[in-house]
């Protein structure tokens, strides 16, 4: 049975409700971030960038952690269910988007605060490596082959990333701490957040987390559909392959 037009979507009543909540939260976040909240004593108006910057990097970390967990579940589970791999892939893709967003907003913030778009600070550098690592992971997912091949290869790569990222992070941290050419403001300086600012930041985290869940639900369903349609293509290919035998 072909679904009716109304059903031909990756949405469900639940995701629609979640989507509505996300939309309201986003509107609140923009209002609160740009108008209602006060400017920071130290950072001035630049603190407003943090309300989108911090939640995006938070989502990226969460997404990559989920990718690692799902890849581990795929490798260790007896069932070897490709569903784990779909969630892992969808999550990594969203993570790459959000880490890119946070790198861009971070460098805009850096231009205002430090006077430069990029500094070779430990956190920035290891975040850049994080980005490249998962771009590589997505490239491995596109290598082709059967679903099980894709799942096994990409889950192994995701688990290797779990080893790689702390090593890169640790070495970059060590690199910076021993070679401190500190002329820029300390990026880790504590920002004193008043009530409304703290609320806005928390609102940002909640909003982006809900947004992540919404995107993830849709994206992994799209991957399922892509896999299904590819599989259907296989059915047709098998049928036409069988006809070759009769044709001769």
């Amino acid at each position, binding site marked *: 049975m072909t679904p009716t037009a109304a059903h*031909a979507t*990756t949405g*469900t009543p639940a995701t629609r409700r979640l989507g509505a909540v996300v939309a309201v939260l986003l509107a609140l976040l923009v209002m609160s971030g*740009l108008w209602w909240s006060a400017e920071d004593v130290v950072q001035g108006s630049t603190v407003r960038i943090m309300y989108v910057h911090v939640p995006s990097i938070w989502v990226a970390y969460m997404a990559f952690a989920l990718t690692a967990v799902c890849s581990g579940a795929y490798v260790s589970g007896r069932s070897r269910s490709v569903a784990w791999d779909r969630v892992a892939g969808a999550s990594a893709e969203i993570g790459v988007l959000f880490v890119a967003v946070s790198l861009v907003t971070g460098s*805009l913030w850096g231009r205002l605060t430090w006077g430069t778009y990029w500094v070779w600070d430990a956190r920035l550098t290891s975040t850049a490596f994080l980005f490249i690592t998962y771009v590589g992971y997505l490239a491995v997912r596109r290598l082709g082959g059967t679903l099980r091949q894709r799942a096994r290869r990409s889950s192994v790569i995701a688990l290797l990333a779990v080893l790689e990222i702390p090593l890169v992070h640790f070495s970059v941290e060590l690199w910076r701490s021993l070679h401190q050419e500190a002329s820029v403001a300390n990026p880790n300086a504590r920002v004193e957040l008043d009530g409304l600012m703290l609320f806005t930041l928390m609102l940002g985290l909640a909003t982006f987390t809900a947004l992540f869940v919404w*995107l993830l639900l849709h994206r992994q369903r*799209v991957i399922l*559909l892509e896999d299904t349609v590819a599989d259907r293509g296989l059915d047709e290919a098998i049928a036409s392959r069988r006809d070759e035998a009769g044709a001769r």
Partner: protein
Amino acid sequence: MEHASFIIASYVLTFGSIAAYAAWVVRRGRAMARRATREEMPWT
């Protein structure tokens, strides 16, 4: 507001790219769903 251009730019970039991605996902989902049966979409 001081530095308005940078702040607006970061909001636009953030929400713009997320919106573009979300739109792409939803549209791709619709295109794919049209080629699938309801049994193949366990959420319906």
